[in-house]
């Protein structure tokens, strides 16, 4: 069965599980759905207070810069890290039912995507209140789609790799910690460019632009905050990278789907 045939066959279960997981998550805490918004707001507040003292950037602009970075990053990190461990977390279920293994990473991604879309809506409302929304904001769905492709593309192969070799979880956490600091969450791409020009290190800026998350975060800021179109060549490169990961991930799932339970030590 091809991936598309599986998608058609299992779409109901994916959607129902996503809906059930969102409900279940909200019921686990007193504040429920409010946490979906509160979590990125709190991280933004912490980063803002720390960073505004260092670089002196204060006010709504600085908050919005960090908030956009945090929402995009939060979506990326929680989806990939949560999705990576989701096969292992559902081993007892997979040992009883004949289900394709991608279901659980995809459900994790959809749950986090729904939460992030909700927060993106709030960010847009904040930007609109300040009169920042314009015609360029119409590019937002394209950027969201590229990020979703990147998330699915990374999560699929990582979910197989982490299930087969648990140690990779630690390695991937470290890579994510590094990416958190180099993806431009609390600084902008133009600041990186300026520093690289001043320091005569253009290679560093080029390396920065090979990070698809840095490109995506800058693209969000361009269309929401700066009233510009995204850099299409960089966005296209990020989409190309995402596509490569996606193909790799689908191939890994097709190969290991029925083998992985026998190969894993849980």
């Amino acid at each position, binding site marked *: 069965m091809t991936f598309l045939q599986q998608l058609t066959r299992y779409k*109901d*279960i994916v959607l*129902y*599980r996503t809906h*059930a*997981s969102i*409900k*279940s*998550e909200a*019921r*686990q805490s007193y504040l429920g759905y409010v946490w979906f918004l509160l979590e990125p707001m709190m991280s933004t507040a912490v980063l803002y207070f720390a960073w505004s003292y260092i670089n002196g950037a204060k006010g709504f602009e600085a908050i919005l810069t960090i908030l956009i970075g945090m929402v995009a990053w939060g979506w990326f990190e929680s989806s990939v890290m949560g999705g990576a461990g989701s096969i292992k977390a*559902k081993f*007892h*279920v*997979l*040992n*009883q*039912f*004949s*289900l394709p293994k991608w279901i659980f990473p995809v459900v994790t991604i959809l749950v986090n995507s729904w939460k992030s879309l909700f927060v993106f809506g709030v960010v847009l409302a904040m930007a609109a209140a300040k009169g920042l929304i314009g015609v360029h904001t119409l590019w937002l769905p394209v950027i969201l789609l590229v990020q979703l492709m990147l998330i699915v593309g990374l999560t699929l192969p990582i979910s197989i790799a982490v299930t*087969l*070799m*648990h*140690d990779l979880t630690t390695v991937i956490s470290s890579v994510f910690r590094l990416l958190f600091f180099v993806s431009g969450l609390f600084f902008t791409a133009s600041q990186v460019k300026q520093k690289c020009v001043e320091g005569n290190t253009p290679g560093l800026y080029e390396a920065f632009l090979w990070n698809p998350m840095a490109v995506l975060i800058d693209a969000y800021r361009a269309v929401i905050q700066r009233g510009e179109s995204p850099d299409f060549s960089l966005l296209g490169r990020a989409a190309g990278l995402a596509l490569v990961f996606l193909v790799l991930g689908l191939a890994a799932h097709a190969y290991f789907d*029925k*083998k992985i*339970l*026998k*190969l*894993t*030590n849980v």
Partner: protein
Amino acid sequence: MLSKTKKEIWAVRGLNLDIFEGEKLGIMGRNGCGKSTLMRLLAGIYSADEGKVSYSRKDCHVELLSLGVGFEGNLSGAENAVLNGMLMGKSRKHMLERLDAIREFSGLNEFFDMPVYTYSSGMGLRLGFSVAMETDPDVLLIDEVLGVGDEVFVKKSEEALKQKFAGDRTVVLISHDAATIERMCTRAVWLEKGKILAEGNPAEVAAKYHQGVGAYTN
């Protein structure tokens, strides 16, 4: 240090087994004889590293009876019933249409609409069993599970299973208890180290099992 993957163990190898439509096949054997691996192979959970498992019908719905696996504690019994049925291959619509029957059979009453984390383990089993009884697979695989729950529900669940056995559905029951297989099945197989040691009439296979199993027990 790297996590070690499982050593290469052949739980089932060189097995040649036909299961006929409508029959009630009992597979008996000690713990670790390969029964559960065989069930997972039949259910399509594992792929065979050697040989193949084939079905005469392409869309054959094979289901391994599992009680309460995959329940989400924060969701209600009704929500979990739908979710669980979908895991077993049924559509959301199919399960929604059968919610009343599941509520009725489980006897959970008002608890059916309460989160599953409020259930006792027996109540969870009752819900799981009631869901499984409404999924109607072509081939039902039962791994040691027969009557579950308290005294009243044990009778009720055994009765429901007897009905499944009485119909024309194909049932494969695995158990280390030869008496259960003698009582419930029309044909039996004795499995040891992933190979068939005896096959045929349940009473005859059970007799061979009782006679010979000692040689394989440490």
